[in-house]
């Protein structure tokens, strides 16, 4: 299984797959999201993230495997599953012709809230999202950031125990990203809401409890962010520029290399142990080459797991999962 196994599960999938005609968009995903956890789904475009989320949202039927939300099958118990969900898609589901409050009221009614409960839920959601001052503003006048926050407020207003968010912060400036994550963190803290999200901002995944890396429809890594980064090495040497290739073997001669990943611009080399030799190397490297030593990030994990590792010498350590 690609996830933590204890506790009540907001999501559990076993061998979940989905095809579009002859194309396998999602191969066989094993995923567990315990209630109250935040799980990041990472991977390049076309990795199968959106497909997995649409199946979990009951909008696509799986081609194979099983998916359950709080123990309910997403195909057989669709109506029950839908009551547990708050959804945010890549494009905001906000109607520009309606005001912000009208959009939320519409969503509240869609989720089955009575008129009086909807009023209360909308007022609370506007307040939480910092949108109260914009409640009467037509949604088309909102900036991208506020529009996305309205979308998040919409998804959360009926206080679902599970949020499925497909790139919820795409295109947002740091201020609105921070507000968005603040909203989600508050929901987790106060209501124990589980969150499954995909993102291209890998630093955002650092804050979650568990990360699943998808590539070509398959999970290629699944662990806590800290453990995933630890596999890369204690530090990462990044070499970019002309002649970068030649420096890789030099790094291997002065440090214990855990992995070498070739990127479009050069190499990311995971290392363990002393960095003394590297400090000397950095001082002697020509200015045309960027030679940096830094702590590992989820970006390094992403490159290693989704682009494959370059061939390494006999003394390097293979750190594949």
């Amino acid at each position, binding site marked *: 299984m690609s996830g933590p196994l204890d506790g009540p599960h907001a999501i559990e999938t076993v061998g979940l797959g989905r095809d579009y005609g002859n194309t396998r968009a999602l191969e066989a995903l094993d995923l567990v999201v315990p209630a109250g956890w935040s799980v990041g789904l990472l991977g390049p475009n*076309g990795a199968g993230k959106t497909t997995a989320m649409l199946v979990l949202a009951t909008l696509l039927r799986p081609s194979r495997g099983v998916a359950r939300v709080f123990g309910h099958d997403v195909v057989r118990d669709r109506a029950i599953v*839908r009551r547990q969900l708050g959804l945010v*898609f890549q494009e905001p589901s906000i109607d520009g*012709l309606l005001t912000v409050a009208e959009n939320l009221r519409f969503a509240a*009614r869609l989720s089955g*809230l009575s*008129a009086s409960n909807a009023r209360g839920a909308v007022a609370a959601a506007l307040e939480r999202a910092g949108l109260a001052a914009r409640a009467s503003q037509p949604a088309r006048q909102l900036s991208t950031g506020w529009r996305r926050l309205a979308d998040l407020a919409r998804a959360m207003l009926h206080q679902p125990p599970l949020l499925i968010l497909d790139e919820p912060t795409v295109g947002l400036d740091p201020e609105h990203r921070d507000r968005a994550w603040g909203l989600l963190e508050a929901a987790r803290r106060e209501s124990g809401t589980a969150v499954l999200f995909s993102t291209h901002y890998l630093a955002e995944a650092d804050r979650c409890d568990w990360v699943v890396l998808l590539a070509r429809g398959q999970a290629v890594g699944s662990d806590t962010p800290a453990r995933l980064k630890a596999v890369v090495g204690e530090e990462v040497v990044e070499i970019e520029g002309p002649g970068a290739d030649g420096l890789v073997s030099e790094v291997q001669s002065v440090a214990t290399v855990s992995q070498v990943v070739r990127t479009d611009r050069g190499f990311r080399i995971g290392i363990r142990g002393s960095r003394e030799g590297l400090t000397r190397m950095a001082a002697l490297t020509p200015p045309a080459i960027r030679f940096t030593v830094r702590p590992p990030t989820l970006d390094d994990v992403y490159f290693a797991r989704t682009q494959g590792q370059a061939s390494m010498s006999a003394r390097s350590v293979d750190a594949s999962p």
Partner: protein
Amino acid sequence: MSGFSAIHGIVVRDLVRAFRQRGRLIGGLVRPFMWLVLVGSGYNAIARIEGVASYRAFVFPGIIVMATMFGAMLTAISTVYDREFGMLRLMLAGPAGIAAVLAARMIAATIIGTVQGAVVLLFLPLVAPVSLGQWMASLAAVALGAAASGAVGLLVAAPLQSVENFAAVINVVLFPLLFLSGALYPTLGMPAVLRQLAQVNPVSYAVDLLRATLGQPAEFGALRSALALLGTMVIASGLTALIFEPERRFMFRHRPAGP
């Protein structure tokens, strides 16, 4: 309860959207009066129709149906818009599901079509005498015509994925339905093939029902026309539900990328 809430939410949204798009609303009201003035006045001088005082009195029920039909059918553009811009996904992922979405869309189309038809109906006393009873019966006929038109509009919209497509396709549907309905001229004088087409055209029955309620000569009679409109509504709704098959219900502007 969740079904009722969802239907109410969707209907309110559709009505708010319709009444905020003033250009569309005004266009929907101006169009029938333009036909009445331009076509009605021209033909009034030359056309004589048996059993009706003037061509303008003859064409008025047709113009009411035109306003109703255009209003109700064009409301289906919301479904295409929502599919194109992602709102339909949201509705279909709600607990109430597809039945509530279709029912709500039908109700909204019926209301909008009825309002547009009723506005034109208000002006009927200017061209022909009408009693309160006839006026009320005509309003019911307008509502039935709006419901049938709304169902046909949804059927047209169901497989379409872009607003541009809908605009192109709906014109191809609307105008033949109007011209082959007896709204603007009697179908009795048409060539046999066109006359047969007119007899399976639901708009013919909407026009005929309205003529019957207003005491004008009617070809099919009120009961047959009302049943034909109800039948149209049921068949079109059923087909729409089938066309809205699960995998196409929430088509994206961009399909989810494959590997």
